[in-house]
């Protein structure tokens, strides 16, 4: 087999695996019972699926201009997907959208009052009260 053939095979495997993982992420989004579980699907198989598809593309296209763009896409995907999942999950939890019957334990619930009020103090600024 020629080198080009080997590269094509690797690219094909990457792309198909990536596509299947994205499919699995889609199925998981539909099937998982509550929002927090679904965010797992949005954060993990989807990210790896995208990385694999990008790797496949990079092997096939292999021009500097396109590969640098793909590197950027991969980097920002890795950096932002967890943040997005966290923000959505956090809002959902505060809004009581969690299926508590599926939780084995919940160590956040007793702490929740710490997060609801005192927004200024969490920034470490309002330790001094204005004079009454």
């Amino acid at each position, binding site marked *: 087999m020629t080198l080009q053939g080997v590269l094509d095979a690797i690219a094909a495997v990457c792309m198909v695996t990536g596509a299947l993982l994205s499919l699995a992420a889609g199925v998981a989004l539909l099937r998982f019972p509550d929002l927090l579980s679904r965010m797992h699907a949005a954060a993990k198989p989807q990210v790896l699926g995208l990385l694999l598809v990008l790797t496949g593309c990079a092997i096939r296209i292999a021009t500097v201009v396109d590969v*640098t763009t793909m590197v950027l896409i991969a980097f920002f995907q890795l950096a932002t997907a967890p943040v997005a999942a966290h923000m959505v999950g956090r809002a959902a939890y505060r809004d009581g959208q969690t299926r508590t019957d599926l939780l084995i334990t919940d160590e956040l619930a007793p702490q929740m009052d710490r997060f609801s009020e005192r927004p200024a103090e969490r920034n470490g600024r309002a330790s001094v009260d204005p004079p009454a």
Partner: protein
Amino acid sequence: MSPLTKRERIRSRITAVIGLVLVWNLLWGEFTWMNTISGAVIAVAILLVFPLPPVKFGGRLRPLHVIGFFARFFYDLVVASFQVAFLAFRPGEPKSAIVAVELRVKSDLNMTLVAEAVSLVPGSLIAEADQQTGTLYIHMLGVRDAEHLERLRAEVLHVEARLIRAIGSDEELRRVNAPREEPAT
């Protein structure tokens, strides 16, 4: 947290400019002087209009451990992806749990990076973060029983330890390596 000295603030800003110039070059697709100069102008403009919060970086890079961290991270990402994919096609609803994990190094940078890494490794997602106590509240998916839960909890601390070994300062490294006292219940 102590405020940054002037020198640290300048260093933090220079790092930001270098990062933005790099992104600009990558967006254009090639490294040229033209791209670098125009990127630098735009980076300075961006930092003037949207000043970034200063990040305190007191550690030093240990290249071998950085490679180790990323190798383990990508391995974990693959495991996590196939685990979630497997759960997606399995009948029944997966059980989960929310646990509190108190990090040993409470800097903003460490908390952010651990949270990012933990979100992409098997079974965990950040539900809430407490900056003051350095505690991450982590939603774990596919938890089987209490013993499994403790393993996952330990895994988060391992992620933190690997990260600190890669980029932490000596003092932080000592704190991570110190034997962990059992919490009194």
